[in-house]
């Protein structure tokens, strides 16, 4: 049960509220002073106005907050920002090359791989991670390796189509280059 006496203990009033950190976010360096209890997700959304990264559950149970940290797909809601000091962070706002959309972004539009659009940035960042990892080759593997991204609108088959399309394009391009 919640116990008021108990709650008083852990709160350390002498805590330093500001810790200097440095990130490269979508290619630009950010020097910030932040409290340790702010998550990367809230830092992006509430302080850096990068609201493309979504909060769907805030507990690592939906994948909407997926960003790329040093190239790896990670749930930003469970990351205390200070703990990733020095990292390179790529959000949905930074995945495109200049004015052209990332091939996955175009494929998502083309395959209607979303409806409400709220899980979409997380799905796309996750799919970018999946392609970079190079471990999913079959449809079943795409499904399994995308299962950390829930979509309540139920666009799963279209999402898998979009990812498979880009994956095959990539494979074809590699073959052509060889």
């Amino acid at each position, binding site marked *: *049960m*919640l*116990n008021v006496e*108990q*709650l008083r*203990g*852990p*709160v*350390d*009033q*002498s*805590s*330093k*509220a500001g*810790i200097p950190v440095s990130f490269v976010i979508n290619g630009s360096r950010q020097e910030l002073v932040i*409290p*340790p*209890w702010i*998550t990367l997700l809230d830092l992006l959304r509430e302080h850096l106005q990068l609201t493309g990264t979504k909060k769907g559950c*805030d*507990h*690592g149970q939906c*994948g909407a907050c*997926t960003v790329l940290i040093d190239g*790896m*797909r*990670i*749930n930003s*809601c*469970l*990351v*205390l920002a*200070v*703990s990733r*000091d020095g990292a390179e962070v790529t959000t949905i706002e930074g995945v495109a090359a200049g004015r052209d959309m990332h091939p996955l972004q175009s494929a998502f539009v083309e395959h209607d791989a979303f409806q409400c659009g709220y899980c979409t940035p997380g799905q796309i960042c*996750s799919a970018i*991670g*999946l392609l970079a*990892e190079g*471990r*999913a080759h*079959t449809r*079943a*593997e795409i*499904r*399994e*390796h995308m*299962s*950390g*991204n*829930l979509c309540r609108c139920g666009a799963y088959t279209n999402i898998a189509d979009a990812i498979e399309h880009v994956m095959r394009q990539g494979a074809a391009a590699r073959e052509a280059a060889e």
Partner: protein
Amino acid sequence: MNRFDYVRPDTISDAIKALAVPDARALAGGTNLVDLMKYEVARPSRIVDINRLPLKAIETTAEGGLKIGALVTNSDLAWNATVHEHFPLLASAILAGASPQLRNAATTGGNLLQRTRCYYFYDPSTACNKRVPGSGCSAIGGVNRIHAILGASDECIAVHPSDMCVALAALDASVDVEGPDGKRNIPFTAFHRLPGTEPHLDNTMAAGELITGIHLSRCDFGINHTYVKIRDRLSYAFALVSVAVGLKLKAGVIEKVHVALGGVAHKPWRDLDAEAALKGQRPERAAFAEFAGQVVAQARGQGQNDFKIELARRTIIRALEQAAAGTPQHQSNKSLQQEK
């Protein structure tokens, strides 16, 4: 989430010093601790960020074993070439858990310290002996469909949620810890504990100790292993029951068998007596059924989770069949194959 002190030591000894205050917690991947902090289940006075410690290596030992640093991520471990080749059971179990994103952040040490998914543990408005010792166990007589069928006590029926740990139990791993009183190595089966009268203690680490790594000795299961996980949806869900099996077959009989169960107890469950009884037998369904019957003989349901006893029995048999056939479960394949 409460406010807390934040320190980021560079050395293990500094980390241990920093942890020596009441309610200090070590932060690695954060996938469980930050979650618990947001639910107000964990309210640390100090976060000791250990991510800068030199614990990220996977090293092969001279005798063909492995030493895995505590900060190796679940993904790095699962996809490590040596692990894939020589410890595929471990890789498979890791890939059965959580999601790629979580595995990219979660660490080896953190996985061992993952706390239960008991609904009541997670809801500070309810009584829970694990969260607040002495407050009672709401799961007994409550919503306990996912709870323990083995080794539970009258004070706690929570289960350990990890998949990786089930494989580590089957692989007879051991855990390196370091604390104010020095270093020690804990056999995996002695690392996690049963709830007994102190369910707030998940493991046998002393206060202020830190996991530094995992040891695995050479694995001789070859292709005769599998990890089978049964859950309420086909991915991204905790196990109702999971089974890790490693077999060594010689001349048509079982020379060595390790079976660990997940989702059924407060710790990954091994039944050494049953394993001993299976040794020397032919790898056939009748022997597997007898083994499974022996493992669940002591099982006790809580009402809603009674089905897990039968489910565990059947899953053990299926996993043994897969391991014996040398057809380990691929975690992207949702058909739990059975060789006939």
